[in-house]
C-alpha cells in the first residue's frame, strides 16, 4: 500500500472551525513514504506553466501569433510568394520570441515570485525540479512548433485557394525538422539564461541582447576583421544556429553548431545549475 492511499480522507468540510483534528497521526505505520516520481514533478511543473494569467496568455500567444502571422501572409503577400516557406518564415519570428520567454519564466518565476521557497521544500532535490522544467519546456516548444507548422500549412492551403494559384510545398520534412531544432535551441538558450540569472527581467533582457543586439555586431566584426570572419562559425552560436533556417547543413556546419552550443549553452547551463544547487533560497 502506498502512503498516499493510506492518507485519511476523513475530514468533512466545515469541521475546521470547530478545530477538529485535521489529520490522524500514526495512520502511516512507520514505513517512510515512497519517493516523488520524476514524472509527477514534470507533470506538476507543466501545470505551473499554465496556471497563472500571464502563463496562460503566454501559451495562448503561441497559437494566436501563429494564426496572426499566417493571416498576415495571406492578406499581404504577393501571389507568387504564397509558398509554404513564406508561411514558415512568418510564424517562425513570433516563435523565436515567445518560446525562450516561456522557458526562462518557468525558472525565474521561482525566484522573482519567490514561489521557490515552497517548491524546493516540497521537492528538495533542485536538480530534479530544474530537469523537469527543462524537459517540459522542450516538449512545449516541440508541440508549439508542430502546431505552428500545421497552422502554416492550413494557411498555405487556404491562401493559395483564395489567390487561385498552385499550392507550393517548398519546405521538406528535413527542413522543417531543422527549423524546429533551431527554435528548440533558442528555447534552451532562454532556459539557460533563466537558470543562470534567476531574474525574470534580467533573463528577458539578456535574451534580447543575445538574439537582437549581438548578431549585427558579430556581422560587423566579421566584415571588418578577417581573423574573426574565419573564427565566427566556431564561436558564434547565433550564426551557427541561423544556418538551420537555410536548409540542410553540411558536416562542417553541424560541427560549428555542436561547438558553439557547447560554448553558449552547455557551459553556462552547467555553471547555472551548480549555483542553483548550492545557493540559498531566500
Amino acid at each position, binding site marked *: 500500500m*502506498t*502512503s*498516499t492511499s493510506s*492518507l*485519511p*480522507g476523513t*475530514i*468533512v*468540510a*466545515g*469541521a*475546521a*472551525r470547530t*478545530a477538529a*483534528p*485535521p*489529520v*490522524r*497521526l*500514526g*495512520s*502511516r505505520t512507520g514505513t*517512510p*513514504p*515512497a*519517493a*516523488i*516520481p520524476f514524472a*509527477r*514533478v514534470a*507533470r*506538476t511543473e507543466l*501545470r*505551473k506553466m499554465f*496556471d*497563472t*494569467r*500571464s*502563463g496562460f496568455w503566454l501559451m495562448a500567444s503561441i497559437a494566436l501569433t501563429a494564426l496572426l502571422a499566417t493571416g498576415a501572409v495571406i492578406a499581404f503577400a504577393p501571389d507568387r510568394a504564397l509558398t509554404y516557406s513564406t508561411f514558415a518564415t512568418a510564424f517562425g519570428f513570433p516563435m523565436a520570441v515567445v518560446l525562450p520567454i516561456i522557458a526562462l519564466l518557468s525558472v525565474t*518565476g521561482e525566484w522573482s*515570485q*519567490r*514561489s*521557490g*521557497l*515552497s517548491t*524546493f*521544500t*516540497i*521537492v*528538495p*532535490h533542485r536538480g530534479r525540479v530544474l530537469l523537469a522544467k527543462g524537459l517540459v519546456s522542450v516538449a512545449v516548444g516541440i508541440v508549439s512548433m508542430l502546431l505552428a507548422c500545421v497552422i502554416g500549412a492550413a494557411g498555405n492551403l487556404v491562401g493559395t485557394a483564395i489567390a487561385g494559384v498552385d499550392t507550393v510545398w517548398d519546405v521538406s520534412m528535413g527542413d522543417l525538422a531543422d527549423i524546429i531544432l533551431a527554435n528548440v535551441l533558442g528555447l534552451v538558450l532562454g532556459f539557460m539564461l533563466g537558470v543562470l540569472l534567476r531574474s525574470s527581467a534580467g533573463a528577458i533582457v539578456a535574451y534580447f541582447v543575445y538574439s537582437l543586439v549581438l548578431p549585427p555586431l558579430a556581422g560587423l566584426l566579421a566584415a571588418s576583421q578577417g581573423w574573426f570572419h574565419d573564427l565566427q562559425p566556431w564561436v558564434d552560436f547565433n550564426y551557427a544556429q541561423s544556418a538551420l533556417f537555410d536548409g540542410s547543413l553540411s558536416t562542417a556546419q553541424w560541427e560549428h553548431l555542436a561547438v558553439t552550443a557547447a560554448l553558449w549553452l552547455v557551459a553556462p547551463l552547467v555553471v547555472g545549475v551548480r549555483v542553483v544547487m*548550492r545557493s*540559498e*533560497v531566500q
Partner: protein
Amino acid sequence: MIEVEALTKRYGTFTAVDDVTFRAEPGRVTGFLGPNGAGKSTTMRILVGLATPGAGSAKVLGRRFADLPNPGLEAGVLLDASAQHAGRTGREVLTIAQRFMGLPPGRVEEMLALVGLTPTEAGRRVRHYSLGMRQRLGIAAALIGDPEVLVLDEPANGLDPAGIRWMRDLLRGHADRGGTVLLSSHLLHEIEVIADDLVVIGNGRVVAQGAKSALLQAAGSVVRTPEPERLALALHTEGIASSSTGPEALRAEAEPDVVGRIAFAAGLPVLELRPADGAGLEEMFLELTADTQRDPRDEAAA
C-alpha cells in the same frame, strides 16, 4: 522529532547561527523565541534544506530534510506566507502541493475548509490576499500532506485575535495527537500561551532552553523594602546578586525564604516578598532585544 546539533552558519564575517543545539520532541509544541534577526529564520531555512549549514547538522525524523523521500508527507513547512506566485489562486497553490505530494484531489477542498478560506476566497489570486489569508493558505499547504512534523516561522503574523486563537488550538491539537511542532516568534507572550518547551535565541546563540514551566519559575525573588541599598549590600555580603527593579524594589537571585532571613538578620523592613515568576525570562528577553530597540531620545540625539 527535530534534532538540531551544533549548527553554525556564517555569512562573510557575520555569524547568523552560532553553535545552536536543541530538540523539538513529539507530542510537544516547541517555541523558538528570539528578537528579529536573532537567527531563527536562518536556523529554520537550514532545517528544511533551503540553506546549507556551515557546520553541524539539522535532522527531521532522523534524516536530513533533503533525504526525506516525499518531505511534504512527513514535515509541513511554512516559512514565509508571502512567498507565493502572486498570479496563482489560493486553490491553485494548494493544488500544486497536492499534485507534487501525490495526494487525492479532495484534499485541497478539505484544507481550504480547515483553514476557513471560502470557495470565493480560494478562487482569488494570492496578490489580492491579506497577510492573514496568506498565513491561512500557508498553514493549509503545510498541513495538506498530513505530516507528523510542523515547522512554522512566525505563523501568527497578520492573524487577528480570533485567528491566533484558532491557530493555537490547531497546533495544540496537532501536538496532542503526537505531532512535533516547532514555531518561531519574536513575541514572548504570543509563544508563552502555546509552547510546552522554549528555545530562546539571541545573536545566533541559544541563551536559554527547556520546559516553559521550568524557565518561567527559576527566577529568584522580588522584594520591596524602604531601604533597598542596605538590603542589596546585605545580600551581596551573603554572596547573592540582586538588581534594582524600581524605587523600593529589588530582584534577588535566591529563593524568598533565604532573602527573608537575610533581611531579618539585617534588621530591614520588608514590604513585599515573593517568587519572581517569569520575570527572569521576560527580563532576559528584554535584554536580548535591547540592542535592536533604540530609545527614541537616543535616536533624536544621534
